């Protein structure tokens, strides 16, 4: 087993963990964290794919690297929006979960 | 000359490692939050400083070296800020309510 495969398996596990947290956690902040873990696992898998594409004297395929950077920034913006909505929700209702009105 | 520099690097880096270890042990073994904080901010900055010192002969001058030094200064600044900041927070926290057991 190589290091690259190892990180690939790690990414797979992170995706599973994030998915689990997203479904099971009742608190929205915890859901946001779980979403970030999930996204990070996905990007890690992408990074592993990039690393497997090392060629032409570059250690990692630059195309996926660029995509990962874009996705990281988008994920950050999404986290900001989610946190802002959560803070409004807490202000308005005093609750930090979406359960009871479902 | 190279040999001497390499020996210097090895000695400095190993010393740095010792300080890092000390910081961690302090974090795990010291009795309360404030002393843990104290042990930590001192030890890890010294450790980093020694590592930087050890690496200086191994990098390209002037930019590589200056970058390393700047980096250490930044870390010192962070340590010098975090100590008082956290210390103050812990202090008020402890006074505002029962300190945690």
């Amino acid at each position, binding site marked *: 087993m190589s290091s690259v495969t190892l990180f690939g398996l790690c990414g797979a596990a992170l995706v599973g963990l994030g998915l689990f947290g997203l479904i099971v956690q009742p608190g929205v902040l915890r859901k946001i964290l779980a979403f970030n873990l999930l996204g990070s696992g996905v990007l890690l898998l992408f990074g592993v794919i990039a690393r497997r594409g090392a060629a032409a004297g570059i250690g990692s395929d630059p195309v996926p690297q660029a995509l990962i950077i874009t996705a990281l920034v988008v994920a950050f913006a999404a986290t900001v929006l989610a946190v802002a909505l959560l803070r409004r929700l807490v202000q308005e209702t005093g609750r930090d979960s979406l359960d009871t009105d479902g | 000359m190279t040999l001497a520099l*390499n020996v210097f*690097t*090895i000695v400095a*880096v*190993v010393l*740095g*490692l010792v300080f*890092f*270890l000390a*910081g*961690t042990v302090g*974090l*795990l073994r010291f009795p309360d*939050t404030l002393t*843990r*904080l104290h042990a*930590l*901010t001192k030890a*890890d*900055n010294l*450790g*980093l400083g020694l*590592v*930087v010192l050890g*690496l200086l002969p*191994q*990098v390209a001058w002037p930019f*590589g070296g200056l*970058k*390393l030094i*700047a*980096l*250490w200064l*930044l*870390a010192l*600044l*962070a*340590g010098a*800020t*975090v100590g008082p*900041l*956290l210390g*103050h*927070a*812990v202090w008020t*926290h402890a006074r*505002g309510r029962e300190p*945690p*057991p």
Partner: protein
Amino acid sequence: MSEFLLVAALCVLGTVALGLVAILRGPTPADRLSAAQLLGTGGVAALLLLGVATDTAGVTDLALVLALLAAFAAVAFVTQRTPADVVAEPASPPAQEPE
């Protein structure tokens, strides 16, 4: 030389990993944060060693960025808890929480 530096990087990381135990253990938020701080400094040292050992472009810059931002977690921790929030303090030490 690079072999030695790699081993040294590994040792620093190992030490730092021990510090992670403190993050998990707490018991107060400040303790967790201090441990995260140690992780930061140690990580910077490990990166420096790694960067010099493997001569990879940009790793020193990465360490520089991490050192630059090292104080941010503590700043956020302290300042985001304004007196008004103390009423709604969520980061109460676990000792006060029901098991």
